[in-house]
Every structure is written in C-alpha cells, then in structure tokens.
C-alpha cells in the first residue's frame, strides 16, 4: 500500500514539475517573443532568407548584451512561401498559439497587407519590412515602415527618377511604363504615372505583364521600342528584371533614362550575372558601399552578415534588404528599452514621436507610419567591367545620383552613354 502511495506522490510531483516547466508564464519571464511570417521560399524567398539572417544577427547582438529589459529575445517565425493567403493564418497562430509579445511584418507589400488587419484588431505595434504604401487604406497609427519611401510612398518612390529626368537638357518628353502584375510593382508604376503627369511627360506606353508567368520579355520590349519613349520606367521583380535587362540589350532598346523600380538589380547574384549589362541603368536603391552612406553600425553589421551568408547560400553582400531587416527590429528593440515597457501603446507612441538611430541612419516616421521624409536613392550603375563579386563591393559602381545630400558621383545621361 505504502509503495502505491509513494508511486502516486512521485507521479504527481513529476506532473507538477513538467507542468511548471511548460507553463507559458515560466517562459514569458525568460523570453521576449517576436513573431513574424517571412518569405523563405517562393519568388521573394532569396531576399526573405537574407532578411531572416539579419534579424537573427540582431537577436544575437541584443541577447549578448542581456536581452530586452533583461529578457532574452526569441524570434518565432513561419515561412509564408511568398503567398499572401498564408499570412493571416500565420499571424493568428503567432498571437493565439505562440503567444508572441510583438509582431513584425514579413517581407514585401503583398505579404504585409494581409497581416495589417490582424495587427489592428489586436492593437499591436507593427513594424513593416518593405511595403509600398501598405497602410494607405488602413491608416493604422501603430504601423511603421522601415523602407525609406517617404510620406507619400507611391509618389515619393519614383520622384527621384523623374526629378533627374526633368533636369536634363534637352528635356525628355515621353515615357513608357511597364509593371509586373503584382501589388508592389503596380503601386510603383501608379506613382510613376502620377509623377509623369506632374512633371509633364507624355505616357506613350503603359502596360502590365503577368507575374509570375512571363518567360520572354522580347515582344514586350519591342512594343516599348516601337513607342519610342525618352524615358522607360519599369516596376519588376527579380526574374523579370533580369529578363528585361537582357531583352533590352538584345533588341538595342535605348531610352534616355532606363530603370526606376526594378527589384533584383540590387542582388549580388543577379549583379554578377548581368555584369556590364547593368551599366547606365538608373534604379531605386537603399544602400550601397558609397562614402556618403556610412551610417553608424552598418559596417559592423555587414561584416557579421557577410561572414554567415555564404554558409546559408544567401546574397553574399547583402546590401539591399538585410540592413533594413536589422534596423526594423533594432528600432523596435530600442523603443522597448527606451520606454522600459512591453506595452504596445507606449512602445507605439515612442516610435511615432521620436527620431531613431539605426544602422540605416536616422529614422523619423510621419503620420501614416512611413518615413517623414523620403530617402529613396536613385543609383546609377557605372563602370562595371566584369562579373566578379568584388566589382560590386567597392565604391564607384553603384553611384548615388539622387538626392543631392547623399550624391556620390555624377549622373551619366543619356543611358546609351553610360552603357
């Protein structure tokens, strides 16, 4: 009898120990959970995985200093497969099952928009990673976008391209617009359309191409060539950007200014493949190893990233998304530390009302959660002589030509001269 009682007591004790160990409160005291969906596969997978590495570097940096308010940071994430339909379910799971303390967005407009209603419903601070005007319809006051598009993101995104064009003599008159049929590219070109009108350029071609699903861009670019535009503004994703650049060279399409919103030209693998074909193209950019863009902490971060990226088969240089992926969690972490609180409203108010020092420079948000002032660079690819990676890791190749305060070299016009 005594033996049975001993076993029962032992069983209860074990059960108690196990239940204490797995109580959420027990873990909550140890960790701050930051949850998000991320495109780890699918068309945005390459950049998404690089973003994840950047966030992990931040987590390790913070944890090495003791965590946030004494609690270690844990990243809880799921692959959204670059499918917007997967996003709401992921955030519901993060909040209801994983019980995360904060949420941040996945990468890209298409993946941010489906998560925003959930963030709003739960009153969560929601840091966005490269969403173009994602908050336009929601107008959520606790949404903050790290991409420096500016207060009127759709228009500000391409303003530099148009300001550059408008300064040229003789002044260009016509423009062709081409976009991938997806959220970001459509928005980018919608802004370009408004800028074209504002700057008085006549639109002679304005079409979308299926994304995904376009194998060859030659017929499309021939139609553009037939319209004979002075300017050619493209909103495209990596695969399309490569196809467009190659087809443009093959059919000798030479508008006076070419580029604008082409995603992918910032990726090292694509740069190494296209090599000299990139010369003369002017495209949006967020960071390049130019002397005017040495923000505090950026080089230390990139050193860590570049050490780890080859092991994970990621973009080896990581100039495009990773610094911003680091910055958007860095900014959130700094806000938690500054407010000494995990309260969403307090952290949100702090982010909204202050200027934040990050690895991508000082960030101040405007009313709609976008940067208060646009800092979308226009970079012209110049003097590329080979396909080697070293070509793209030094200054003078991705030359900042807009805005004036960050300019690192002279703009070569027209495009054919820079080729």
């Amino acid at each position, binding site marked *: 009898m005594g033996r049975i009682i001993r076993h029962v007591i032992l069983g209860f004790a074990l059960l108690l120990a196990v239940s204490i160990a797995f109580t959420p409160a027990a873990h909550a005291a140890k960790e701050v959970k930051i949850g998000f969906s991320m495109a780890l596969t699918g068309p945005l997978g390459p950049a998404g995985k690089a973003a994840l590495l950047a966030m992990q570097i931040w987590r390790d940096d913070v944890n090495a200093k003791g965590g946030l308010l004494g609690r270690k940071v844990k990243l809880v994430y799921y692959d959204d497969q670059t499918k917007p339909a997967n996003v709401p379910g992921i955030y519901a799971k993060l909040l209801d099952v994983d019980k995360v303390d904060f949420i941040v967005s996945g990468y890209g407009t298409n993946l941010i928009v489906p998560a925003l209603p959930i963030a709003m419903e739960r009153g969560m601070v929601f840091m966005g990673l490269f969403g173009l005007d994602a908050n336009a319809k929601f107008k959520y006051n606790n949404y903050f976008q790290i991409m420096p598009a500016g207060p009127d993101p759709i228009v500000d995104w391409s303003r530099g391209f148009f300001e550059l064009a408008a300064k040229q003599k003789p002044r260009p008159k016509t423009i062709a617009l081409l976009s991938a*049929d997806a959220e970001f590219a459509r928005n980018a070109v919608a802004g370009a359309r408004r800028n074209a009108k504002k700057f008085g350029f006549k639109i002679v071609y304005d079409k979308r191409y299926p994304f995904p699903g*376009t194998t060859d861009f030659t017929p499309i670019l*021939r139609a553009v060539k037939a319209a004979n535009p002075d300017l050619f503004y493209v909103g495209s994703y990596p695969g399309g950007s490569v196809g467009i650049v*190659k087809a443009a060279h093959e059919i000798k399409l030479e508008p006076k200014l070419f580029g604008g919103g082409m995603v992918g030209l910032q990726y090292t693998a694509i740069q190494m493949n296209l090599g000299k074909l990139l010369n003369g193209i002017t495209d949006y950019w967020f960071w390049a190893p130019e002397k005017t863009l040495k923000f505090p902490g950026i080089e230390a971060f990139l050193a860590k990233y570049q050490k780890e990226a080859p092991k994970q088969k990621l973009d080896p240089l990581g100039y495009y998304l990773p610094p911003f992926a680091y910055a958007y969690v860095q900014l959130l972490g700094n806000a938690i530390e500054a407010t000494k609180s995990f309260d969403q409203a307090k952290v949100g108010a702090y982010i909204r009302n202050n200027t934040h020092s990050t690895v991508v420079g000082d960030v101040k948000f405007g009313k709609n959660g976008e940067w208060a002032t646009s800092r979308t660079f226009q970079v012209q690819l110049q003097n590329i002589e080979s396909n080697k990676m070293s070509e793209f890791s030094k200054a003078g190749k991705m030359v900042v030509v807009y805005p004036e305060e960050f300019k690192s070299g002279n703009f070569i016009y027209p495009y054919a001269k820079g080729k």
Partner: protein
Amino acid sequence: MLSIEFLLNALIAGLLLGGFYAAMSAGLSLSFGLLDVVNIAHPAFIIFGSYLTFYVNEHFGFDPILAGLVFAVPSYFLGVAVYRIYYNCFEKTGAESLRGLVFFFGLFFLIEVILIITYGVDYRLVRAFYIGKSTSIGSVGIAYRLFVPFLVGGMLAAVLYLFLTKTFFGRAIMGVAQDSLAVQLMGVDPIRIKTVAFGIGIATAVIAGSLLIIIGPVEPTIGREYIGRVFAVTVLGGLGSMTGTLVGGLILGVAESFTSSFFGPSWALAVSFGILLICLAVRPSGLFGR
C-alpha cells in the same frame, strides 16, 4: 506601331519561345500523352535539370547545352527508377489515378525542397558566350539566348519523332500506347517499354531545364509557373504526338508574343489558354491527337 517589321519580330520571338515550350513539353508528351502517366512533377524535373546545369556551369564552366545533354544520361536512369516505384506502388495495384497523382505531387515538392536545401532559394543563372548577344536578319532581331533553346527544342522534338516512328523501340512505345494487351501478346513486355519511355521523358526534361536557365534565372519553385503551360502544349498538340507538341508549343509561343506585342502582355496567358479551350471544344483530341 503596326509595321511589317514589328509583325515579323513578334512572329519570330513567338516561334523562338514556342520552340522552347515544345522542348519543355516533349517529355510530358511521352509520359502523359503516350503512357497515360500524369507526371505532374515534370516541371520539377525541368528545374532539377536547370540546377544541374547551373552547378557545372558555375564550377567548371560547362556550356549549358552540353551540360544538359550530359546529364540527360543519368537522368534517364533516374526516370527509370521513378517509374519503377510508381509502377510497383500504384499502377500495378490499379491505384494510379488518384494516388499516382498524389505521388507525383509529392515528388514535385520533394524535388523543390531538395533544391532549396542544396542550393538555397536565391536566383541562379548561367553564363555562356551566346547569352546577351543577338543578331539581325534584315530588320528582324534574333537573340541567341532564345535561338539556341529554339534550335535544341526543335532538334529534340525531331529526334523523338524519328525515334518513335523509325525505331523498333519507338514503335513499341507507340504500340503500348495504342493497345498494351496486343503488344504483350506479341511477346513484348509493356512495363519495360513504359519504363524506357518514362526514362526518356525525364531525360528530355533535364535537357529542357538547361534551356530554361539559358533564357532566364531560376529558383527552386519556379517550376510551378510552367505546370499549366506544359500540359497546355501537350493537350493542344494532341496527346502523344511529337509533331503536335512542336506545333502546340509554337502556337502558344506565337499567341503569347502577338498578344504581348499588340494588345499588352497581361492578356498573353489568357489568350494562350483561350486558344487551348477553343481547340478542345472543336477538336477534343488536340491538333494531332490519336
């Protein structure tokens, strides 16, 4: 905008693209068209071929076409192995219709995951002396990046056509497709014939993969973009007809090119699949179907 030069350029671009579509679909025409094996994983094998090509191009400087041809040989044996598994697990037990389809779906995702783990999710491209260059015949421009896949695709379809119509083994495959029991009564093992045919189908998929990476960058999941197209080409041309596959590919290529050139690229896929639907309504067995 509507000049002869523009029209000719659109036509040539469409034909070049169509030749490539035919190359992509040739293997499926064998497995699906002749053997009734719904190999939904066919585009994944194409991407597998692209990655093999990428690997030897990146590390050893192999020409992509040469790489595709070399890898076609081991890929044939891979196809043989896949068919053997499929046959023993599904076809033999009469469970090929639904469970067989699930098998190929599973295989599709398995290949994708293997590629993601092995190569990562970054876009991969190859280098070759003809990529990025073009030539002109009169006012018609021809990009080598598209011309080479067109040429290889056409040759692939021609070789398969000759193989199926002029060789004993080819005729045996056609025989199995027509009446498996009759072929068996002639002393031929239809399973062996189907195994060989499926192996050839996978070998052609790998060659098509080397053509795809010449045209543009690939990432592990890009095969999904081509499921609709390869099945459309196979069905449009007529199940099991190599001539039909070539013609079907060319029709879809030209339709896409003309639509992109004259009406806007966003209509291109809709027009292509519209043609397929019309064809199926008028001629359900496809243009050159049995």
